[in-house]
């Protein structure tokens, strides 16, 4: 297989006396959806915060597209093309889709906002994900459904030329139809050549959309599986710690 987009080896992180990550190895590839599952307190959030640069790791090597990378701050991660879509989505309800997608990175020509160009790019980003449910990019975000909001947040990362998009519980608050919508979107994101990491508690979603599944248990990566070679019962076993993996590091 080709070079992983992101590769962690021996990553450790502790808060005072508590070791949250006890030497994690993890790989995610471009054009694939990689799941990160585990019970509460397994270390998923800490692992993600390290990738996003919010809480840098204490030890270990991070390689991005084969090159060693130092993710000291969100700025570093952003510059590499790592974008995290958090559960709260960080959208402003009173702004429209374009304003939200360009918030803090507005394009300006001669001191004036270049609305035409921003509208065009926002439309293009949504089109690249085949989003058809949004009527107008000038709609206020407050008028969007939960799935559409998730869509906007994901499209924003596309707009920023993300190479790796990390989604934190993207379907947690959504109904059945909207979950389907977002999962399709995630698949298209990967089909466009972007590496996607999904954190989820919903194994049905994970099995539907992910290429590989990584299970964290109490700060250790206890399983790295191909979705096609495993089943839900096994994954539940790894998550709850009743099953362990032999022969795989």
């Amino acid at each position, binding site marked *: 297989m080709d070079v992983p987009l992101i590769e962690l080896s021996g990553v450790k992180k502790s808060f005072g006396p508590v070791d949250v990550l006890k030497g994690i190895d993890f790989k995610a590839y471009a054009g694939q959806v990689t799941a990160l599952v585990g019970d509460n307190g397994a270390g998923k959030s800490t692992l993600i915060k390290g990738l996003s640069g919010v809480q840098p790791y204490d030890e270990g090597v991070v390689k991005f597209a084969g090159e060693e990378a130092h993710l000291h701050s969100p700025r570093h991660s952003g510059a590499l093309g790592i974008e995290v879509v958090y559960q709260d989505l960080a959208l402003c309800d009173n702004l429209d889709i374009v304003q939200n997608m360009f918030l803090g990175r507005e394009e300006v020509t001669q001191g004036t906002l270049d609305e035409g160009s921003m509208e065009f790019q926002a439309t293009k980003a949504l089109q690249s994900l085949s989003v058809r449910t949004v009527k107008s990019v000038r709609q*206020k975000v407050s008028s969007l459904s939960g799935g559409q909001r998730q869509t906007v947040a994901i499209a924003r990362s596309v707009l920023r030329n993300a190479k790796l998009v990390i989604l934190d519980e993207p379907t947690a608050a959504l109904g059945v139809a909207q979950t389907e919508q977002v999962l399709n979107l995630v698949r298209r994101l990967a089909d466009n050549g972007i590496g996607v990491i999904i954190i989820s508690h919903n194994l049905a979603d994970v099995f539907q959309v992910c290429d590989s599944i990584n299970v964290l248990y109490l700060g250790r990566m206890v399983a790295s599986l191909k979705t096609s070679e495993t089943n839900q019962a096994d994954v539940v076993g790894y998550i709850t710690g009743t099953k362990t993996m032999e022969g795989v590091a």
Partner: protein
Amino acid sequence: MSSTKQAELAMPRRTLGGALRSFTRRPEMGALIGAIAVYLFFAVAGGDKFTSSYGAASWLNIFADLVIVALPVSLIMIAGELDLSVGSVIAGSSMVTALMATTFGLPLWLAMVGGVLFGAIIGFLNGWIIVRTGLPSFIVTLAMMYIVMGLTLGLTRALAGTVNIAVEGDPVAKMLFGTFIDGKFSVVIFWAIAIAIVVWWVQSFSRFGNWVYAIGGDAISARAQGIQVGKVKIWLFVASGTAAAFVGMMQTITYNGAGVSKGQSFVFNAIIAVVIGGVLLTGGYGSVFGVILGTITFAVVQQGIYYTPWDSDWASLIIGILVLAAVLTNNLFRRLALTTGTKKKGGK
């Protein structure tokens, strides 16, 4: 069908025709209807005198002073904060100008710059304290209102031995900041128009304007997108302090002097004008158009009453009722504006 839709999507929104069309669905509709209704009411009740150029000048002059203060205050309110210190800043800066020009014997121009700078400094202090301490702006600016009020009164009496200072006008300064054109229209009206254009540009066409709305809508999300929320807020308070001081300085020039208690009424008048104009106290919504309309409404009521047979005491009653009516209709229009054309079709 979807391709025509996409082409439509890619079109720039801010065309004149588009602006006019979307205006009918805007939250400012309530403010517009209110302004027209109030004007018509006094045109009928006040007769020819109210609709004459003298009548127009009387409310336009009030409007001009108030809108210069109200516009920056509206930006602060859109960002979800409040500035109660503007009234004291008007009195304070008016007095700083007068003291510098008389007691300290400095050139009038320097005194005028000093007066405006005083407002900018108070505004900066407001913003800095709010950002650094995380205290509500209501409390910080309320405290600042009293601090500035006390300083103005105390220092003026200590330094000048009086609470009213006469200032000798300079012809150029007078012409720029304190004349009445044709004996009726205050030159401040032109300053108001210029400032309104600047604020409108900032609000609608600059990154800063975008950030102000974002902060008022969801400050945490705005920060998550890399916006320096604290910096933006401090600038907003500097702007409102400076604008209030500008009005105070012009009053000193216009009336050839300063009094320690002038301008206090501006605090609530400005907030009333802004609220009638459709700005939400909780932040995130509002526009220059709305604030202008709200200020016109306020000025028309306050001056219009003098053209009717009724006692001017009733003006406050009308304004009070108007505020309530305005907030209720604005909420209605905002609901309409937010739902019209964006209704989700059920299912797919």
